[in-house]
């Protein structure tokens, strides 16, 4: 059963010429079912009623993904270059991207899934980036997974 939570924050990817800012929304595992949500095939939980340990862990996942994507290393640099070079083009990346993430009990990212970016290399790079590290804490055992994270990319010159 998939579920949703939402948290949002903004971060900026620093590039030499073009700054890429992205909004990331965390869509959380949900618990209580609402009729509207059930019609859409998802169970939604009121974020204000979610355990704080869930929201804290989700914030940490958000921070780690931000850190990994903005890291100054080859794969992350290549992925950001792809975003800046292809954004807005017909075959470019979508304006928003939902990433589903499964976390292991030791804090590592077991796997992620997302709609294709229409570029196999970019798909592989993003998957590598988001599964390469440890979140730093164990996910709350009772927290439903996957976490659904929606990225909204905004390009700024």
């Amino acid at each position, binding site marked *: 059963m998939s579920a949703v939570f939402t948290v949002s924050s903004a971060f900026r990817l620093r590039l030499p010429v073009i700054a890429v800012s992205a909004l990331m929304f965390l869509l959380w595992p949900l618990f209580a079912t609402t009729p509207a949500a059930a019609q859409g095939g998802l169970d939604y939980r009121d974020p204000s009623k979610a355990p*704080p340990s869930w929201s*804290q862990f989700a914030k*940490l996942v958000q921070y780690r993904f931000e850190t990994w994507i903005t890291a100054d290393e080859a794969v992350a640099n290549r992925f950001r270059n792809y975003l800046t070079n292809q954004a807005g083009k017909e075959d470019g990346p979508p304006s928003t991207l939902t990433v589903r993430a499964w976390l292991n009990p030791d804090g590592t990212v077991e796997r992620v899934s997302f709609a294709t970016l229409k570029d196999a290399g970019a798909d592989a790079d993003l998957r590598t980036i988001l599964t390469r590290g440890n979140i*730093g*804490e*164990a996910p*709350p055992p009772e927290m439903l997974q996957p976490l659904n994270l929606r990225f909204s990319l905004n390009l700024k010159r």
Partner: protein
Amino acid sequence: MAQSWMPVRVPESTATRSLARPPEPATIAREKSSTAFFVDDAGHMLTARHAVEDCTRLVVAKEGRVVSARTVALSPRFDLALIKAPKTMGLAAVFPSGGAAAVNDMMFAAAYDKLPQMTTRGGMLANARVTPSRGESEAGHLAIDSPVTFGASGAPVLDSRGLVEGVISRRTGVDRVLAVGAGEAKAFLSGNSIRFAQDDRPQIAGGSSRANRAASISARVTCLQN
């Protein structure tokens, strides 16, 4: 005699030349390292006042990332300081909204530099215990039995819920440590218009490592002095 836990190191070569930032001091005579932790999503951090007083420059380091920071405010009454980094690296701490910790409550506190070895060994639930206060002279403080040593000044004292119950200040005896209490820390933050989080609900799952949460909210702060 009270003792702080900031190692003081004199670099082998004190004659350094700044290549990119002329305003920075040409000579760093001393540096001292301590611990600070984030208290909001804007990069504000709480630490011990004695850790950041009289610094020419402050540097915050966490997980390989190093940024400059500045002192925002020093508490005139307690060993507290508010500093600001460009952004929050990790999580912001959450303080208890209710009453203070009770004697014999188990706590966790450690210098930032000690946390990696604790987390890689599977984490740690607690390494300190609340002890009775010694009277009016310790008002506003939380006394704990704790093995913290150098570099722990300014470290958060975490309870079983992952809430910050104090800020490590100084040693008053063998394994007896005083931390500024959460109430005083919150008042200091409020007095400086910092919007911090407070909650009495657990911020970590039961049985989760408090060492890992400490690592998520903390960083090393280095004070460079002429």
